[in-house]
């Protein structure tokens, strides 16, 4: 019985981490599908979400909900600024330069965070308290429910957005054929900016909802970003169900691996999976046909 | 020289090429024409190993090259130029042609790093030969200009010079006249004749009918992935099916 409980805990934490990876991967996919760029700085938006919330809570003494909203807003603004200053001028440069720029930006953001907030880890208070709920003999924290809930909401919202709103369809049009999209009056530039906004917002939200469980600090962005990338690669760069599956799968494997094989190599598991996927099946495990990228 | 045997290429549900067969005679200038979307560039990509064929065979002389990797083909005597010229932009004109000679030369990493005598000799040879090819295509004055700074017409010539440096037996040119004005096209025509006179077989994909009818001895017409007609220029010009394919039927 104890073993089952332990297994359940592993699965639970694996799934909740996985949901976060899925959200972060989602951010990668949105930008990639709109621009063809992998935004190395994606992990830093995740970091900004958590750190800014901590800052607003503790230093500015704001209540939780406004602090969260403001943190998301500031992160989104950071994303837009980044797109405007560094990405837009170089839209037609060779990929190598763009990669280096996004790497530079991610380092820069991390450096600013370190300067402003130091190297300490910080904790966000759990949204609905710490009282664990007993479910089938195992314990779930309310925060886990928040994570699952928010993730489901975001996935549904994105489904709605991309399939049933003009703007969402415009973004899809841009990803398939920017020239044609431009010809029918869609502003590709605005769509690109929108993709950065969406990615930054979702990324920072992801960072906020996981922070109460795993602490946050100036350098959480690297690992989370990479794992989110791993999730979206498994999911075949889809902005939908594929990435969710990818994230959950990754989280599970990581958690079970850490639990049953070795805890200290936990992080290595994600990267080994990443390499294996890239080597063997770079189009992802859950890739849909070209026409179903969203 | 080159023989295509029932080449078929499927992309998912789309059949880009359907049982295309024809042969290219040694030392000839052959043109492949057809309306847009007929599959001409796909055909080239298959012959040069950039796409894998779905079925059929390609023969270079006696050798079945259907599954050869692209980088092996230069060694077998087959090179191509590209529709949107693929120059090595940041290298000079001379250096571009020198890369064309990569195929005939052998110095490896060790020999080059240590500047062994074999490598030195080879370098001299590469440099001299490359200048010869520049003179052949009348680009020698631009030898040290960066390739990306060349005007378009010269860029096309450079691609041809680079391809020639590989000492091919056959050269496939993908729309070499695209983007050239009429004077440049005439110069291109005489260059292609010069190339053929030196013993190299030429296959062109082209849209410029004047050029094709002028210099091609043999013409293959593709339409919607199938071979529509094949023959001499006069025959093709008079072929009602060909005319219909280009102009559409009423």
């Amino acid at each position, binding site marked *: 019985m104890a073993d089952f409980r332990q297994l359940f805990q592993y699965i639970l934490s694996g799934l909740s981490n996985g949901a976060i990876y899925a959200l972060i991967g989602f951010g990668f996919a949105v930008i990639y599908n709109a621009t063809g*760029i992998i935004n190395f700085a994606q992990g830093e938006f995740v970091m900004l979400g958590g750190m800014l919330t901590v800052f607003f809570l503790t230093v500015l003494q704001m209540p939780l909900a406004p602090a969260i909203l403001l943190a998301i807003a500031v992160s989104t603004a950071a994303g837009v600024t980044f797109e405007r200053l560094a990405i837009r001028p170089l839209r037609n440069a060779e990929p190598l330069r763009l990669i*280096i720029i996004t790497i*530079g930006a991610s380092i*820069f953001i991390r450096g600013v965070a370190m300067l402003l907030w130091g190297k300490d880890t910080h904790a966000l208070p759990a949204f609905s308290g710490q009282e664990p709920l007993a479910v089938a003999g195992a314990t779930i924290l309310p925060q886990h429910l928040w994570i699952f809930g928010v993730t489901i909401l975001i996935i549904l919202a994105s489904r709605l957005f991309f399939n049933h709103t003009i703007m969402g369809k415009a973004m899809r049009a841009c990803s398939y054929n920017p020239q044609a999209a431009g010809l029918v009056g869609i502003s590709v530039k605005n769509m690109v900016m929108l993709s950065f906004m969406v990615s930054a917002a979702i990324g920072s939200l992801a960072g906020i909802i996981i922070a109460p469980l795993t602490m946050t600090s100036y350098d959480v962005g690297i690992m989370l970003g990479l794992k989110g*990338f791993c999730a979206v690669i498994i999911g075949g760069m889809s902005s939908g169900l594929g990435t969710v599956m990818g994230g959950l799968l990754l989280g599970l494997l990581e958690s079970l691996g850490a639990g049953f094989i070795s805890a200290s190599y936990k992080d290595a598991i994600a*990267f080994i999976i990443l390499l294996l996927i890239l*080597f063997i099946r770079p189009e992802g495990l859950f890739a849909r046909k070209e026409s179903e990228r969203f | 020289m080159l023989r295509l045997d029932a080449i078929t290429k499927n992309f998912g549900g789309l059949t880009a090429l359907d049982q295309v067969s024809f042969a290219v005679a040694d030392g000839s200038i052959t043109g492949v024409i057809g309306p847009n979307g007929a599959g001409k560039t796909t055909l080239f990509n298959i012959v040069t190993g950039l796409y894998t064929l779905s079925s059929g065979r390609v023969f270079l002389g006696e050798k079945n090259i259907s599954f050869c990797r692209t980088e092996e083909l230069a060694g077998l005597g087959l090179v191509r130029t590209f529709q949107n010229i693929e120059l090595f932009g940041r290298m000079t004109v001379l250096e571009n042609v020198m890369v064309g000679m990569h195929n005939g030369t052998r110095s490896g990493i060790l020999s080059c790093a240590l*500047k062994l005598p074999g490598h030195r000799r080879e*370098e001299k040879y590469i440099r001299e030969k490359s200048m010869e090819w520049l003179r052949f295509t009348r680009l020698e004055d631009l030898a040290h200009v960066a390739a990306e700074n060349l005007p378009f017409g010269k860029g096309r010539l450079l691609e041809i010079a680079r391809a020639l440096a590989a000492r091919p037996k056959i050269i496939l040119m993908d729309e070499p006249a695209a983007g050239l004005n009429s004077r440049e096209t005439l110069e291109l025509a005489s260059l292609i004749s010069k190339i053929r006179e030196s013993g190299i077989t030429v296959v062109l994909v082209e849209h410029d009918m004047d050029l094709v009818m002028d210099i091609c001895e043999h013409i293959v017409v593709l339409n919607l992935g199938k071979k529509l007609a094949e023959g001499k220029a006069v025959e093709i010009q008079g072929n009602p099916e060909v005319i219909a394919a280009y102009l559409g039927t009423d």
Partner: protein
Amino acid sequence: MTGRKQQMILFMLFAAGILAAPFFLKGSYLLTVMVFVGINTMLAVALNLLLGYAGQISLGHAAFFGMGAYISGIITSRFPVDPFGVMLLAAVLAGALAFVIGFPILKLKGHYLAMATLGFGIIMYIIFNETVAYTGGPSGLPGIPSLRIGVLVFDNDLRNYYLVWMFTLVVMLLAINLVQSRIGRALRAIHDSEVAARVMGVNARILKVQIFSLSAVISAVAGSLYAHVMTFIAPASFGFNFSVELLTMIVVGGLGSIYGSFLGAAILTTLPEFLRVFQDWDIIVYGLMLILMTMFMPGGLISGMEAGLRHVMAKIFKGDGGHAQA
């Protein structure tokens, strides 16, 4: 365009300057710093061959550096074997590993390649950190002996300076020869248009792996030297941060330039020493440098210097300051 002879003269001058420098730096802290400039130059050249010339991005190069350092460190600190022999072993092992993973990794392009090399680098870093029994884990590995040839022990700054720079100068010379040769052109061709290079007969697949391997070998040798010079190593020096530093060095100094590699290494190694305040700002400055350089001076500082030099030469030889020829 500089001819072969001019290149040789330039290198001789550079080498002479390097070899003579200690007489001017006698005993000062700068001498110690220059030892590390030497090691970083080796690493920068190795990365530049792969990234600047062949255009293959690698964000995990610190891993090979660390491999060299740990193999040398672990074996020589426990067994009385010839350290140069171990250095050779480390180089061969690093090269072999690079060769094996090179084939699958270099099939990837652009972002995927960047992420894959990043992942590889982090996996190695985790191994360095976790195999405590061998590497000493996060607290590091002490007691690495100095290198020696016969009775000559390399245990002070001056001797280490010449030791390291002899290696670095040799690597630079080999690299300069390589990039000016047929192989160098093939690499640059792969960078500019891999498809056209292949059509011309360049076996891009194998050449990329060979350069990756060579790059790993050089990095491992640098790691080995580092271990013996420092006599103490820790995983923190071989992680993602250092890979990024290397990237910044070649972007700032000059992608696709051997002397640019030196320039970048020199700047980024010496700057922190002079600006103590810099310590907390280093990450921000690296990020800014990467962004600004890539946006405004993609050829690195060396390209700016070369342009300036050409301008000066033109003025000198034209006299009237007229336009220089290409």
